[in-house]
């Protein structure tokens, strides 16, 4: 695990390796009201504060509020993009809550398990076995045989966790102060509970992790998208709430205004993208964010943006579909729609997000492309990235925001001139630049036409953007592992995290992940493929959309497809099984 992506390594398998690794996986399970999400948040804050990295994912049952809830927190000495499977510590207030999470957690030999003292049952079979007996702690306050309100369980748990992790009391106090400083009564109660458990706890020690000493930053994928967009010049956002993307809008409501921008909650997704197109027609960098159902509704408007050559950035946090599907589960099933959706032929760019850190960068690229080439750019994130919290380095320097080239009087070319890939943008307010942007096919000046030859030439002109972009984004991809590795994996988006660990643990593998999905960096893939003995395409899509898309671009006859529907992301063990099974 400690070896860099490109350093050869002899470690193999999953179990043994991860037990000695420089990371710790905490799995926290409760019901609504137990506050495991807050508990996870506090652990993340403390980790970040001491310069440790980490990542947290959450899972809920079907109840809107009050149902089962789990927080899976991995803390590590270097950046992690995959939460792992085998809990080093499992904390569970009620055994019955576990059932809902079957398949998403597992124990290993040395796992520490903390249960409530009142729980008499045993751990379910599917969790696997730990060599240690569970620690039973009296979280619940019991009077006359019934549970009554008492010390907050999550604060007691925090005391035990700090013990296990070897984290100082003062750090926890700082975290609580940070979180509840504005509510002193609550704070006092929480600190007291924490202290009691911290003092009493006899918890087996987990591996000690040493942080970098400088505080790091906790951010989720939606925040990263929102902030990346602001850094890249975003000044107008319109959106409509939808899980798991709503937080993009919510972050912008809080943060964009201070940067001179404006946020509108539209009446629906059609209006949201319509407003974005309107604002961008006005010369202002604009964006919307949504998830599958909203993206489907934006289809017609996406074509309008492309046809009228008005830049627009569209973020799609994919969730499991079709229709309403499983709103808080991840999937990679919107790729087809992003690349091929919409009536008629029109150019658009599709980018994929790898993780929270990358989300910020990719937003810059999205605005760079849309503002330069005047077309819609789709950014595909997913629930796995959007809803995770990830600890990242603070941002030191930001790229300069791209600037749209503006037409000025005497600048010559008409708005849709065929003499250049993209003519300077005629920003309203500029004298002499008046023109019409029309969703109808149009002449270089913007006047409607029904001439088939002109239509063909306009399509040529519009699609020339894609060729131009393709020429400049040839290296917009990432590779993992060493060039000599004989086994190849191609994947995209949030598969990056688990594949990074896979390749580290299996040096016979290397992986290729495009950052730009359309136009696809085919030359880079072709070059990278050389010398491979086998190739697998890994994705969370029942239809294997990515595989099929690749097959339409290049010869994929020898490649195996490792594709399934969304829900839980791929784990290392599932990959191990599927890569084995898929052998020809």
């Amino acid at each position, binding site marked *: 695990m400690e070896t860099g992506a490109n350093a050869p390594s002899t470690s193999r398998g999953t179990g043994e390796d991860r037990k000695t690794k420089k990371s710790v996986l905490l799995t926290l399970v409760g019901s609504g009201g137990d506050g495991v999400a807050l508990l996870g948040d506090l652990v993340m804050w403390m980790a970040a504060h001491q310069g440790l990295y980490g990542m947290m994912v959450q899972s809920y049952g079907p109840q809107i509020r009050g149902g089962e809830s789990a927080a899976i927190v991995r803390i590590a000495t270097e950046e992690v993009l995959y939460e792992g499977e085998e809990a080093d510590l499992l904390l569970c207030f009620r055994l019955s809550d576990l059932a809902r999470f079957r398949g998403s957690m597992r124990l290993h030999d040395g796992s520490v398990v903390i249960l409530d003292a009142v729980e008499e049952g045993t751990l379910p079979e599917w969790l696997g076995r730990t060599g240690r007996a569970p620690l039973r702690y009296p979280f619940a306050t019991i009077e006359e045989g019934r549970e009554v309100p008492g010390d907050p369980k999550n604060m007691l748990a925090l005391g035990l966790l700090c013990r296990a992790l070897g984290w100082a009391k003062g750090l926890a106090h700082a975290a609580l102060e940070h979180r509840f400083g504005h509510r002193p009564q609550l704070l006092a109660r929480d600190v007291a509970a924490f202290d009691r458990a911290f003092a009493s706890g006899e918890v087996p020690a987990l591996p000690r992790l040493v942080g970098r000493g400088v505080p790091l930053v906790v951010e989720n994928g939606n925040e990263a998208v929102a902030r990346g967009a602001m850094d890249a*010049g975003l000044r107008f956002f319109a959106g409509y709430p939808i899980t798991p993307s709503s937080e993009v809008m919510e972050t912008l409501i809080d943060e964009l*205004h201070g940067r001179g921008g404006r946020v*509108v909650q539209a*009446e629906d997704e059609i209006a949201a993208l319509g*407003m974005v197109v309107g604002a961008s*027609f*006005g010369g202002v960098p604009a964006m919307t964010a949504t998830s599958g159902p909203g993206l489907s509704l934006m289809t017609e408007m996406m074509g309008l943006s492309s046809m009228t050559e008005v830049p627009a950035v569209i973020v799609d946090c994919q969730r499991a579909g079709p229709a309403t599907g499983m709103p808080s589960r991840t999937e990679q099933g919107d790729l087809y729609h992003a690349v091929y959706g919409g009536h008629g032929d029109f150019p658009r760019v599709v980018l994929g997000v790898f993780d929270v850190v990358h989300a910020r960068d990719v937003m810059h690229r999205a605005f760079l492309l849309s503002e330069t080439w005047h077309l819609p750019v789709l950014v595909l994130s997913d629930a796995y990235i959007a809803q995770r919290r990830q600890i990242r380095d603070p941002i030191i320097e930001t790229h300069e925001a791209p600037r749209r080239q503006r037409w000025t009087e005497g600048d010559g070319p008409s708005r849709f001139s065929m003499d250049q890939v993209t003519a300077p943008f005629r920003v309203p307010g500029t004298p*002499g630049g008046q023109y*019409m942007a*029309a969703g109808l096919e149009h002449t270089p000046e913007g006047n409607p036409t029904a001439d088939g030859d002109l239509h063909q030439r306009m399509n040529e002109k519009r699609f020339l953007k894609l060729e131009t972009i393709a020429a400049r984004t040839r290296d917009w991809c990432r590779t993992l592992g060493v060039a000599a590795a004989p086994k190849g994996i191609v994947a995209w988006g949030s598969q990056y995290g688990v594949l990074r660990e896979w390749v580290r643990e299996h040096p016979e593998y290397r992986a290729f992940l495009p950052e730009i999905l359309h136009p696809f960096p085919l030359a880079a893939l072709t070059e990278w493929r050389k010398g491979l003995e086998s190739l697998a395409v890994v994705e969370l899509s029942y239809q294997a959309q990515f595989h099929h898309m690749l097959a339409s671009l290049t010869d994929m006859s020898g490649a195996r497809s490792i594709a399934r529907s969304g829900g839980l992301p791929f784990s290392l063990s599932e990959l191990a099984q599927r890569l084995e099974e898929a052998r020809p």
Partner: protein
Amino acid sequence: MNPKDYRSALAPVWCPGCGDFGVLKGLTQALSDLEVPTEKLGMISGIGCSSRLVGYLNAYSFNSVHGRALPVATGLKLARPDLTVVVVGGDGDGFSIGIGHVPHAVRRDVDITYAVMDNGIYGLTKGQASPTTELEVKRGMGLAGVDERPINPALFTLSSGCGFVARTHAGNLPHVRQMLREAIQHPGFAFVHILAACATYQMPGYAEKLFQRCEMLPDDYDPTDFSAATAAADTTGDRFRLGILYRRPVEQKLAAPADVTRGRADNWSPLGGATEAEETAPGDRG
């Protein structure tokens, strides 16, 4: 500038006798009256015969897709408060496919003028029923939906909370000019319902009858009286009352109509800080 300076070089493709010609003319006159600089004029439309109008103006025009002119215009005006934004379109574009955007544009009260050319029919797609097609027309022509009540655009916008609602007839040029002028001047969302007969797909005699059914609001009509406005908007008595049906008194205006986020709007500069010399304060349509 003269009204004709607001025209582009494009010749209208409308049928001879189409009511939309009058609206084009009245609008150029109103713009000329207000001396709106052409480069500060944003003209937005959807799709329909009437929506073609934006191409005939010397402006920054956007002929968007069917039913979506209001969101596009809202985005433009919020991003660029220095522009004068006018939306035009048809009864189908605005009150069938686009109707969902109307009450929301109204309640946001963004400073946009919305002029609907109501010919009671789908012109561009050759004569299907629109939401304003009257029962007798549907019966007479065998159109779908004979037993649906027509929508009354003026009443609809009024009861959605619109601060300015006027009605006019495309054949009465001075009145069209006046209504559009007042609407553009209104600070906030303004709606103008323009009766503009289709010469090709309406029933024979429709245009004449429509004209006869119009009557001016009396001189002593008080446009700040909401319930009077509701009564005047009503057309069940077969009469169309023309004039400013409603104008909300300024003191009833919400604090910052164009500022739809929390916080204030004056922190705003388009294009990521590239403040332009010619840009003026929000709401100022210079």
